């Protein structure tokens, strides 16, 4: 596609339920990032995928968070047993080259609300 597509755009879930967020990067972009943006805060790195290499999971805040990506295609971020502090906008970005030094293209995000 022309841009990075994220779905759903909004998600309201009950505390304790699992949620799955989807990111469809720009075709041909080898690198994919997930960030979390809490209200009024900056971007918090979660996970980085590069091609078929092992992902950098160093930003995942707990074992309730996991993500998958097959090759250079769609990625899904899963949050198990959601908590209220998981409420945030989850942003996905992709870049053409591994280091991303030419810049990143962001999706519009998924706004997650845990009630």
């Amino acid at each position: 596609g022309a841009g990075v597509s994220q779905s759903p755009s909004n998600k309201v879930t009950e505390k304790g339920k699992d949620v799955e967020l989807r990111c469809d990067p720009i075709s041909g972009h080898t690198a994919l990032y997930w960030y979390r943006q809490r209200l009024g805060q900056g971007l918090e790195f979660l996970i980085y995928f590069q091609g078929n290499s092992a992902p950098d999971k160093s930003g995942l805040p707990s074992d309730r968070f996991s993500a998958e990506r097959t090759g250079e295609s769609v990625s899904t971020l899963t949050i198990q047993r959601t908590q209220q502090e998981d409420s945030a906008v989850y942003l996905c970005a992709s870049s053409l080259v591994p280091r991303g030094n030419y810049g990143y293209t962001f999706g519009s995000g998924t706004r997650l609300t845990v009630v």
Partner: protein
Amino acid sequence: AQSVTQPDIHITVSEGASLELRCNYSYGATPYLFWYVQSPGQGLQLLLKYFSGDTLVQGIKGFEAEFKRSQSSFNLRKPSVHWSDAAEYFCAVLTSGGSYIPTFGRGTSLIVHP
């Protein structure tokens, strides 16, 4: 590890006035530097980037930024602000070696008064 500081949480300017948003970074060598803008309910859009060479970088929407190595700064400027520039602005740093993960500042919210 690199870090980014955007010292101003909010900036208020009048439409037509000039603008400067501050960004300071901490890194031993020259990093890659970026400015992004986020309009309400939207993702981040790249305004401009610096890799090397000319320290004054031109971007989209009439923005420019200047890299000053001696001050470890990469401030964003615009000579005349438009009401549509009201948004959140993020500075980001990517090291030239090691980590592939960019670090973002916490953002500066720009408010434009008519």
